[in-house]
């Protein structure tokens, strides 16, 4: 096989997917739509024309329209059907997915049930352990009680033995005092009464022999060289009675020992060590020391045992508490398990309900169409239903998309608004601060303006006065200069011919400097932003005020200079021309011209000068002498 064949085979084996096919069809359709063939457009036009006129033509020609080539509605229906099929597939897939989810949930439920079972088993185990611990505790308590009882009994025994020993010792003392003479029967009786009583007391105790043996032997046998032989008591009460009786007899038959037999005699035939000896023999010092030692040892042993038992008891109590806690835990776990179970049941129920609902939705058509037997009709209805659902779904999706887009838009807008709001708030706060500052500045400026206005008013007044005086001076050149600078002139305070001096370093300056310094010191000591600012502003204002006053002074000086210059210029003009020119109305440019050589007369010409132009109009001639002059100049006058 050559390579071309392989290629062909591969091509044959290649199958397009459904999506590719749909896409290809769509593309083809769009391409055709965008770039239609000439023949096709003509054909379509013809078809359209045919369709438009078909019913009429059909009626005319009795022509069946169905015989025409495959109509577009059918093609559309087919494509719709395909779409519906695809949607059905997707729905099926969704159904499968839901089923899988259900299965997963069931598996989870099973796991949870297994867990709960394990928990239950654990609880049972714990309960068993608790029971065991309880039993153990009871046993230890019992043992403890038993040992306590034994210990009390032995204590009593010891007490009796101690009494016996002490009485015997007393008896021995009396015996020693009386030089081995023991005559009095009473004394003998008294001596023997104690052991007797002791024996009787001991008879009252009802111990188990084994216990006694064990306790007795255990405490003594540990020591080297000590053997403890258990001597069992008579088991029957008769034996006991017999023993008592024997004791009485022995007491009655008590004989005083030989005088040469000392208590410390350690011979083999010593009667003191014999078993059936009188009670007196047991109370000798040598034997007693041994007994005491044994007893002490036993007591210690018993005490030790007692402490051990106490410890055990405490341990068992702790265990019991633990078991109680475990029980409590167990109870809580059971409760949790129950709740979980209930939740699980609920979720199951929900799932079931969903499943049922879904199934109903899906198989609604089946119910409806169950009456109908035709499968195609059923299929059609199913398809209709599916298309309807798809439409709804699409609509809902669109709505959802629109809603989400609207929501995102609104969200974006709201965030923008918030941001804008924040910015505006910041700007507003800044503006407010600025506004406050500006208001403050405005107030200050208003005050200053008012002050300045007052100053200006005052200056204006002064200026007016000065102007008036200037005019007067201009009008009256012969006016004496001394009158101007008169000291009584209060308006100007210091006239033109006066200077005001003061010492540069005067007390006020010094006080002021000191005040400024103290202010600065205060500022540095307690820096307060607002106060500092205010102080600075005040200082600045003061500086400005000083500047203004300086400027004002400069202005005044310049004004005076100008005035002087003007007056000098005027004088020079008069001297040169012999004419005195007065500017009567500066705005209108009206001037009067009078000859300096006509001293005393009021003859003068009135002219109007037009500023910026060479035009000069003569308006009037005033002459107190004759009408001739007026007549002479009248033609030249402009009225």
């Amino acid at each position, binding site marked *: 096989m050559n390579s071309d064949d392989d290629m062909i085979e591969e091509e044959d084996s290649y199958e397009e997917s459904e999506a590719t096919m749909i896409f290809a069809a769509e593309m083809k359709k769009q391409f055709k739509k965008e770039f239609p063939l000439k023949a096709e457009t003509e054909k379509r036009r013809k078809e359209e024309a045919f369709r438009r006129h078909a019913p009429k033509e059909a009626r005319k020609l009795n022509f069946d329209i169905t015989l025409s080539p495959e109509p577009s509605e059918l093609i559309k229906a087919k494509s719709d059907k395909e779409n519906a099929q695809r949607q059905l597939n997707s729905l099926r897939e969704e159904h499968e997915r839901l089923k899988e989810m259900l299965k997963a949930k069931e598996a989870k439920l099973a796991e949870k049930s297994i867990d709960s079972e394990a928990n239950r088993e654990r609880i049972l185990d714990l309960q068993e352990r608790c029971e065991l611990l309880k039993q153990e505790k009871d046993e230890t308590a019992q043992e403890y009680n038993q040992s306590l009882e034994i210990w009390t009994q032995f204590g009593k025994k010891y007490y009796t033995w101690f009494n016996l020993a002490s009485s015997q010792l007393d008896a021995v003392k009396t015996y020693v005092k009386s030089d081995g003479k023991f005559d009095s029967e009473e004394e003998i009786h008294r001596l023997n009464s104690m052991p007797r009583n002791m024996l009787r007391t001991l008879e009252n105790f009802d111990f188990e022999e084994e216990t006694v043996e064990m306790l007795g032997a255990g405490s003594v046998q540990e020591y080297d060289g000590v053997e403890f032989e258990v001597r069992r008591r008579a088991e029957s009460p008769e034996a006991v009675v017999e023993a008592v009786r024997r004791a009485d007899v022995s007491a009655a038959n008590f004989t005083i020992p030989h005088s040469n037999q000392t208590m410390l005699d350690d011979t083999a035939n010593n009667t003191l060590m014999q078993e059936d000896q009188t009670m007196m023999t047991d109370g000798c010092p040598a034997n007693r020391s041994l007994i005491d030692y044994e007893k002490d040892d036993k007591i210690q042993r018993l005490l030790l045992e007692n402490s051990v038992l106490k410890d055990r008891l405490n341990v068992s109590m702790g265990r019991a508490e633990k078991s109680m806690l475990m029980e409590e835990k167990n109870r809580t776990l059971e409760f949790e398990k129950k709740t979980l179970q209930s939740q699980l049941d609920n979720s199951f129920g929900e799932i079931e309900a969903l499943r049922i609902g879904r199934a109903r939705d899906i198989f609604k058509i089946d119910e409806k169409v169950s009456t109908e037997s035709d499968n195609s009709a059923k299929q059609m209805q199913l398809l209709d239903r599916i298309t309807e659902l798809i439409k709804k779904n699409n609509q809902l999706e669109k709505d959802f998309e629109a809603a989400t887009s609207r929501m995102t838009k609104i969200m974006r807008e709201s965030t923008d608004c918030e941001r804008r709001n924040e910015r505006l708030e910041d700007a507003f706060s800044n503006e407010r601060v600025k506004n406050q500052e500006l208001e403050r500045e405005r107030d200050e400026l208003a005050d200053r303006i008012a002050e300045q206005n007052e100053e200006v008013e005052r200056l204006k007044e002064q200026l007016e006065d000065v102007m008036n005086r200037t005019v007067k001076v201009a009008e009256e050149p012969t006016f004496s200069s001394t009158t101007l600078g008169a*000291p009584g002139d209060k308006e100007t305070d210091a006239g033109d011919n006066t*200077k*005001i*001096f003061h*010492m540069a370093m*005067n007390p006020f300056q010094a006080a*002021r400097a000191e005040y400024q310094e103290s202010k600065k010191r205060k500022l540095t000591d307690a820096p307060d932003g607002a106060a500092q600012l205010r102080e600075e502003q005040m200082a600045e204002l003061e500086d400005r005020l000083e500047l203004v006053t300086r400027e004002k*002074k400069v202005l005044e000086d310049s004004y005076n200079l100008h005035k002087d210059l003007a007056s000098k210029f005027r004088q020079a003009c008069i001297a040169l021309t012999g004419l005195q020119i007065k500017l009567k109305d500066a705005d209108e440019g009206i001037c009067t011209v009078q000859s300096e050589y006509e001293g005393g007369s009021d003859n003068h010409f009135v002219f109007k000068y037009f500023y910026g132009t060479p035009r000069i109009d003569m308006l009037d001639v005033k002459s107190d002498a004759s009408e001739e002059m007026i007549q002479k100049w009248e033609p030249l006058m402009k009225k």
Partner: protein
Amino acid sequence: MARNSIFCWRVSRFAANNQFFEFVSSHFTHFSSFFRFFVSFSHEKPHFLPKNLHKFQEMTEVKTQNAISLKGSAQLVKEFFDFGLSSILYQRGLYPSDSFKREKKYGLALFVTNDKKLEAFMKPLLKQVEYWLAKKQLKRLVMVISEVKTKAVVERWQFDIHTEDVDEDGENAHRTKDQKTIQKEIGDVLRQITASVSFLPLLEEPVSFDVLIYTGKDTQAPEDWTESEAHLIQDAETVQLRSFSTAVHGVNTNVQYRSDY
């Protein structure tokens, strides 16, 4: 002793001539001052003086007591300013009372400053004032009392000076006025200054003062002097006080104060 006696004798011999009168009148304004000078040398009682000297005393005292020159007047006015400004400072409480010492002048017990700083300011000021008075350049002296904090002018003690057309020397160098009268007039003015406390407002804020001198336009100021503004009070209340004249200088006093203070 013998030496003094010889001196007295010589003086008496000298006094017998007309030259003596010329000498005395040119060097001593008042005969009393010459007399004190003479006695300080003699250490003797006045009756040891020659007889014609007493006669001379009677004759010259009348002549010299009434004549006043520009310089003398300037000195008198300067003295008045010294006591007057001190009195104002004391009465208005610008300085503590313990910085003043009591001094008897013009028949009054007046207070003169004892403060070193103030003296350091006042001495050159008055010296310059005397100079300007003697040069006929002083027109007005103003004591301005201002608030230290606000610089607002609170009071303005104004002394307007009118100088007569008197020459520094020559025939037109003297004017005649009784010294006692001058002193009485000055005393009256100072008494009024003292009494002005009753109508002037209480100075509650810390205040200080400055002295302004109004002079002629051509006046040249010393180095430590500068030009100043008038420090006027807007809508001020003015109280005119008495005036006095030395026949050369006439001093007219008034006080302006803030009506709203």
